[in-house]
């Protein structure tokens, strides 16, 4: 399970013995060399040699049966262990230098993949590996708030990535200029949508739900994270309620309306753009942070409902980051098929500190660090 947890972040990690440095695979309880139980997970380069390969013409599993022939290989990692992995179509016959990486398979489990060593490799067009990715190419995508800065960049990034149809959710007050600009783009269609208004959510779901491949919920970015001033206890109750309405109840409306339709199809992915403040409250924007934390918890529930149908629920946790950079990172995360993405230096730092010690992070943020 820990292997899968690292894969959710796009990381290939294996256990390393703290006593003798032996790398372990398959995952285990004690070092295969010195019996120490002090095993820690460390990122691996995955470089190794393909020492044998076979093409399956028969499978005991329905999923693979439908996708035969299926090629797998045995790789000896430079780090030591022998691994069995799915093979990218460009991997030649053994012996061959390869790089082993990890992705999430259709069941949401971490699965090892061997690709040719050296150079970038395209996974989303590979016959065997494409289902581990959520490439928007050729897909129908909804961006719930397409006419705000972040949403606009996401729409542009998606069309640039070859999405066939991009639905732009919009509501009263959105910039006519942006709407006009986006609707000129081939494949872009407008759809009235206000995540806090269940009627519009129902209407949009009825219209586009049955053909939708990817849903991108960026509505939380609509909320201004407030001024830079400290948020005192005397909060504006209406503002706080509005944050919850968009961050949490908006997501809930989408989930209960679009969720069942996506599960029916089944669709490819559901993306939520969240703030890193969801992990640990940022006191200057305390109520906003809390509304994002609520949304984050709900996305975990959503994932538990959608992953069994093979739908990837991807959370992109953003700090202060340029909308274009956020949009590019979102498309990259879809292509990589990960579950959690933290684009940009700020978000990466936040994650590292939170993983190290959530309590220390909490105290440091409260102290203004």
């Amino acid at each position, binding site marked *: 399970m820990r292997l899968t947890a690292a894969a959710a972040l796009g990381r290939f990690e294996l256990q390393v013995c703290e006593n003798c440095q032996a790398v372990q695979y*398959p995952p285990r309880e004690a070092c295969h060399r010195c019996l120490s139980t002090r095993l820690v997970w460390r990122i691996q380069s995955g470089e190794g040699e393909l020492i044998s390969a076979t093409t399956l013409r028969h499978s005991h599993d329905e999923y693979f049966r439908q996708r035969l022939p299926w090629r797998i290989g045995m790789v000896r990692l430079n780090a030591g262990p*022998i691994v069995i992995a799915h093979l990218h179509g460009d991997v030649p016959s053994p012996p061959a230098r390869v790089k082993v990486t990890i992705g999430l398979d259709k069941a949401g489990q971490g699965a090892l993949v061997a690709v040719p060593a050296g150079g970038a490799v395209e996974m989303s067009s590979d016959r065997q590996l494409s289902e581990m990715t959520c490439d928007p190419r050729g897909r129908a995508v909804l961006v719930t708030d397409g006419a705000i800065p972040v949403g606009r960049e996401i729409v542009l990034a998606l069309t640039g990535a070859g999405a066939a149809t991009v639905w732009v959710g919009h509501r009263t007050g959105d910039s006519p200029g942006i709407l006009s600009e986006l609707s000129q783009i081939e494949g872009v269609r407008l759809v009235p949508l206000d995540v806090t208004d269940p009627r519009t959510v129902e209407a949009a779901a009825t219209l586009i739900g049955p053909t939708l491949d990817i849903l991108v919920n960026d509505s939380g970015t609509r909320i201004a994270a407030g001024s830079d001033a400290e948020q005192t206890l005397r909060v504006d109750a209406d503002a706080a309620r509005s944050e919850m309405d968009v961050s949490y109840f908006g997501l809930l409306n989408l989930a209960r309306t679009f969720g069942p339709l996506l599960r029916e199809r089944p669709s490819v992915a559901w993306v939520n753009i969240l703030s890193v403040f969801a992990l640990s409250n940022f006191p200057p924007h305390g109520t906003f942070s809390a509304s994002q934390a609520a949304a984050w918890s709900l996305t975990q529930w959503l994932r538990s409902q959608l992953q069994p149908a093979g739908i990837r629920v991807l959370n992109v946790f953003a700090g202060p980051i340029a909308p274009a950079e956020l949009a590019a990172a979102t498309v990259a995360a879809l292509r990589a098929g990960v579950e959690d993405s933290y684009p940009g230096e700020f978000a990466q730092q936040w994650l590292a500190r939170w993983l190290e010690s959530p309590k220390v992070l909490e105290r440091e943020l409260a102290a203004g660090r």
Partner: protein
Amino acid sequence: MTPATHKRPTAHRRRATTARRQSYPDTVITVPVTVPYERYSTHAAHWFAARAIAGLLQSSHLEKEAIDGLCLSSFTLAPDTGVGLTQHLGLSLRWLDNIPLGGASAVVALRRAARAVQSGDARVVACVAADTNQIDTFRATIGGFSQFSQDAVVPYGSGGPNASFALLTAHYMREYGARAEDFGKLCVAQRRNAMDVPFALLRKPLTLEEYLNARPIADPLRLYDCVMPCAGAEAFLVMRREHARELGLRSAAILATMERHNAFPSDPIQMRGGWALDRDGLYAQAGVQPAQIDFLQTYDDYPVISLMQMEDLGFCGKGEGPQFVRSHTFTTDGSFPHNTSGGQLSMGQAGAAGGYVGMTEALRQLTGAPAGRPVAPAGRPEAPARTGLVSGFGMINYDRGLCCGAAILGALA
């Protein structure tokens, strides 16, 4: 890093056993029993075990109470093990062992039972392997086979052991120049050996052409490289030689045995098994040389493993298997009688009983009661076989078979 506690792997940890081991001068193997195999059965493994034990009693004329020891091997007896069978079948024992070692079970059971009898811990030990087979049995067995295979093999195409052995076979072919025809030659000969065996499930002759053109399963393996899972049971008794004589039972001497588990963990891919470490000791214990072995029963879940056994048991050098196959014939009347009742590839694989096929066949050949044709050793076509080697292998825990075993049996006057 604390060098004091970290031992670098040294050669001595994998050196062959040179210390003298006790032989089996007064202990014999007797009463081979096969419960006819069925492709599918609605009966539980307990049914097949019961039939096997009943067969042992019938052939030996012993009362059930005379059996005071049991070695039990089964994949499908769960949630029961041997102890559940004691109450299920009304056995009272003073010695009990479960041997969950797949194709190595027969050799290991023989070793355990022989020591129990030698030491006086038991008087008559029944060694039994029994398994049922229903439509989903095989898939369920491989799905829950081991922690490592669940985590690191099954998710990769769920090809089962066929996939694992395809990887080994492909590597062996590349490394040593083996061709499909070499494997096919063994399969064709085994099928020939099975033709007269009443309980072999596959008795139709097999031609090399049919073998080469059969349905591909996992490259380079095709249909006839793979065993057919089925239901059935195999069994034998172990007792003192004197006791067997008193009972008027034909038996065979246990000249030597060995077992090894996870023999070569540093080999990146399986090219050899534990037999390579212990074969010299095995022949020394038996007081025979490979040339004196009249027949070889290898564990044949896939032909590549039969070649590995021929190499590692000293019949040819490592990597010389293909050449050895090309220069010998393997039928009962051939230059190197091999899997003389057809092996699992012709008999079918009744779960753990697959590991017993070679043992019961060896015992039958050495007691003058072969299931099919008798072995006619080259140079002595009229004389029966005197010495046979039975090899066991199994338990693909992850990427290689962990268990190896071998026994040399000898005919008694």
